[in-house]
Structures are given as C-alpha cells and as structure tokens.
C-alpha cells in the first residue's frame, strides 16, 4: 500500500462533521486521562507546593504544613546565588541555541554542495552523535577532555589543564557536548527543507540574475523560515532545561556550584536538602519562562495564519 506523505502547500479541507458526537471524545479519552493525571495535576501540585513551607519535617508529618504565600519566591529572589544561576541558565541556553542553529544550518548548506559520498559520511556521523544518549555523551566528552588520560589535551598541548576546574572552561566543555549532540536534528531538518525547495524557483532566480547570496537571502531564507522557527523553538526549550549534561559533566553543578543551571539547582534544593517548597518555586519560575516562549511561538504561528 502506498505511503501517504503529508501534503505540502495545499491545505487539506476542514475535517467533516460526522454523526456520533461522542466518538472523538472516546478516541481522546485515554490521552486525556493520562495527561490530566500525570501532567495537569502535577503542574497544579507544583504551584501549590511552591506556596508552602515544605521540608523534610512536613513530608514525614513531624510538623504541620504551613502556608507561606509568596514567601518561597521572596526568599529565592533575595538569594544572590539564585539570581546568578538564573542569569547563567539564560546565557548558557542562549549560547547553546546559537551554537546549535549556526552549526546545523552551516552544515546543512555544506551538504547541498558536496557529492554523495562526503554527504553520506557527514550524515552518518551526525546520526551517531544524535543517537547518543545524553548521559553517555557526557561521560565520553569528559573522558576526551580528561586532564590525565584524555587525547584532547595531548593534541592541543595543554598538559594537565583541568577543564572542569574553571567556571568558563567547564561551561565551554558542556557547550561543546550539547552542540555536538543537538546540531544533527537542525542539520537534517534544514537540509530536508532546502531540498524541498522546487528547482524552478532557483532557476527563475538565476535567470533574473540573482547572485548566490541574493538567492539565499531573498528566496531560500523566507521559504525555510517555518522550519527554522520550529528547530529554534525546540532548541530553546531543550537547552533551557538541560540537566543530565551539567549534572554528569560537572559533578552535580561544578566546584562550589559555579556551573549550576536552574534544573540542577532545583534538584539540589529539593532532593539533596529536602526544601521541596523552594525547589517547586524554582520549577514554577522555569515553567513560566518556557510558557513565555510558547506564547511567542503561538503568536508567530497565528500571525502567519496557520490553522490549527
């Protein structure tokens, strides 16, 4: 039986009205049950716990839970370390997104300029990096940059320079790993996008005397914009909530917490020092930040007249 690729360009008609008003809800029921119980409910709980004094004493029932109002948030924002972690998280995520998108796009363009064999090599290598689980990627990169046994310091002649000791070098190491494992998605998607641009469009541009650069800027970029939007949003969301890489590569947030990001910070607060109320407040801050990104995304979709 033939495969059914989603139609590009022509918009499929609206779904028809069918008899049986209950049927769609029947189909939706399992998904709604799972999502309500395991997503919506925990989100509400998170908000609730963030307003409580909730530590080991309350969890074990030794002390009654007391309502703190916005006390946890006040405590967080008065805390210099939290403000610093928040700033580090945003800057680090921004750097990772920028690195991932530029690398991915540059290599996607490179793929269009080479013959089949180099293309196969690069795609296969990227597929390998893409498939590598975050935790194994982390251990391998730490080993590559190990001060005593890693090959990188030997090749670069860095002696026994420890990458995880300094704040910036530790962030740089995690940045490299993150870009390594996340550029492939961007590269493959953007490459597919470029290939999907009809040849006639490019021919017409060439006939009109457009330069390579001009073609790229005025023809390809606008056509690729939806794809770029999706991969950028995905990268923002993904890089903003990195946990494994920081946790594993910097040993739980670096020396004296110098490499902490929000996620790891919340984990440490909640599970290492049993301050569940504070940890939840950090979670809410993250949730709100990502919700902001989502709203921007929805607005962009709407403005382009996407139907849902």
């Amino acid at each position: 039986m033939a495969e059914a690729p989603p139609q590009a360009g022509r918009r499929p008609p609206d779904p028809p009205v069918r008899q049986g008003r209950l049927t769609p809800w029947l189909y939706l029921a399992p998904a709604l049950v799972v999502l309500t119980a395991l997503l919506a409910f925990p989100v509400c709980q998170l908000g609730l716990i963030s307003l409580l004094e909730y530590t080991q004493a309350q969890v074990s029932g030794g002390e009654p839970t007391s309502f703190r109002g916005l006390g946890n948030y006040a405590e967080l924002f008065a805390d210099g370390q939290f403000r610093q972690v928040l700033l580090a998280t945003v800057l680090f995520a921004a750097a990772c997104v920028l690195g991932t998108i530029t690398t991915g796009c540059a290599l996607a363009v490179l793929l269009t300029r080479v013959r089949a064999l180099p293309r196969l090599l690069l795609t296969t290598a990227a597929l390998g990096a893409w498939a590598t689980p975050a935790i194994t990627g982390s251990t391998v990169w730490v080993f590559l940059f190990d001060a005593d046994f890693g090959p990188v310091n030997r090749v670069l002649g860095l002696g026994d320079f420890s990458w995880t000791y300094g704040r910036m070098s530790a962030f740089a190491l995690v940045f490299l790993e993150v870009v390594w494992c996340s550029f492939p998605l961007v590269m493959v998607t953007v490459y597919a996008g470029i290939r999907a641009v009809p040849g006639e469009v490019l021919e017409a541009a060439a006939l009109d005397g457009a330069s390579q650069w001009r073609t790229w800027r005025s023809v390809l970029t606008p056509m690729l914009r939806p794809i770029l939007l999706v991969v950028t949003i995905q990268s923002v969301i993904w890089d903003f909530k990195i946990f494994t890489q920081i946790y594993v590569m910097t040993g739980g947030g670096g020396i004296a917490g110098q490499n902490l990001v929000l996620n790891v910070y919340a984990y440490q607060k909640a599970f290492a020092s049993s301050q569940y109320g504070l940890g939840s407040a950090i979670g809410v801050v993250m949730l709100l930040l990502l919700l902001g990104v989502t709203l921007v995304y929805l607005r962009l979709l709407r403005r382009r007249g996407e139907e849902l």
Partner: protein
Amino acid sequence: MRPRIRATRAWRFAAEATAVAVALVVAFPLYWMVLSALKPAGEVRSAHPVPWTPNPSLDAFRRVFGQQDFGRYFLNSLLVAGTVVVASALIAFLAATAVARFRFRFRTTLLILFLVAQMVPVEALTIPMFFLMRDSGVLNSLLSLILPHLAFSLPFAVWMLRGFVKAVPEALEEQATIDGASRARFLWQILFPLVLPGLVATSVFSFISTWNDFLFAKSFIVSATENSTLPMALLVFFDTETPDWGGVMAASTVMTLPVLVFFLLVHRRLVSGLGGAVKD
C-alpha cells in the same frame, strides 16, 4: 571561462574536504568510546593515549556485565522504553485521529493545550511527580518511570501524528464505509497502516527521551535499586574519585548501541517524518 571552472572545482574540493573533516570530528567521540572500551586497562590509563590498540580485550565489558544487576538494568531500560513507545503510539494515534478527522467543540482549544503541554519542562515536575508516585504506591517500581514518560511523549506524538492522519484522503473512509467496513475496522486495518511512517518517527522521539532518562531514574528509584535503569549502572563506574574509564566507556557503548541500531533502522523514515511534521 577556464579559470572560473577551476575556481568552482577548487571550491567544491574545499567543501568536500571540509565535510569529510567535520564528519571525522563528529564521529571521533564515538570512535574513542568504543576504542577505549576495547583497550586493556593499562592502555586506557596511559598519559599518552594512542588512537588504536594493538591488543584489544573484552575485559571492560566483562567487568561491566560482571557487576551485579547490570543485565537486569539493561532489561529494565528496554522494558520501560518499549512500553512507553507502544503505549504512546496507540494512545496518540487515537487522539490524533480525533483531532484530525472530527470537528467538535473545543477542538482548537485542545490542540493549543497539546502544544502548550509539549513545552512543559519535564524536569520542573520532578517534585510533584515524586509525591504523586509515592502516594499511589508506585515509587521504586518501573511504573514510576513508565507513567511520566508516557505523559511527556504524548503531546508531541499527537501533534506529529495529526499531520499524517490528515494526509489520508477522506474519500478512503467513505469508500470503506460503502464497502461495509465498521469504524473500528477502518481505524485499525486501513488508517493505522497508512500512518505507520509517522508512528515510526514519533516512536524514535519517545524511545530516545525515555532511554535517556536520568533524572527520574535518579529521583524515583531510591530504595529498590533492582528496578533501576542503565544510567545508574553507568554511574557506578563514573561517580568515584578515580573513575574506571574502561568500564565507563564499555557501559556507555552498551547503552548507546541499541539507540544507534534503532536509529540506523528507521532513519530514512525519521527524516521523511520530520519533513512531514515540519511542513505541516
């Protein structure tokens, strides 16, 4: 004319050389992982590492599999990821069919909710999830890993499959109805096989995010360690003052291989699936 062609050729050669060089750099960490797993212990801990080994050995793998429960952790990981993949594919298929082929009240609201749900940072929910799992008595069991991952992969799967369901022509359903097929029969025997490429693409994502999970395994499996998953076994070799690098690399290799195999098997469909989802 001549110099221009030469210039183009030089450019092309430079592009291809760059592509090959980048491919080597990108592949190098994985090569080094497998190589170090195969090196005898003395060579792994050499201050002057070489990119080959004259005497490969399986010692590191023996150490890893000799560790108590490593095999069990591996099976646990497979079981958790497998259950999430199958369950989320089935549930998402039904939900995607509902939003793609029916018009009903709150359809748009639901779609927006699915989109918003995708953006919820999983990690921020660890704390309420922990209490939820504890209160429902599934903490320390595999179910405490399966359930959250099911919830987290569903919204994306629905969103992605919607495009594939939509692409199946309406006429097909009319025809099936005329031919006397029941709705259930149409759903499972006609629609389901048609959206299989989309299911493959979504499966990759749910498989990988579940297989990669480190935070939930660390937070929800606290006392019954026999229900732990691979990342925890890996940390046994890594999380010490002097890591057993050979063991870490062997465990990493074992953990990476299933995903790599899965990827190579489905990558063509994955790429076309991505294209489909992005175009939509």
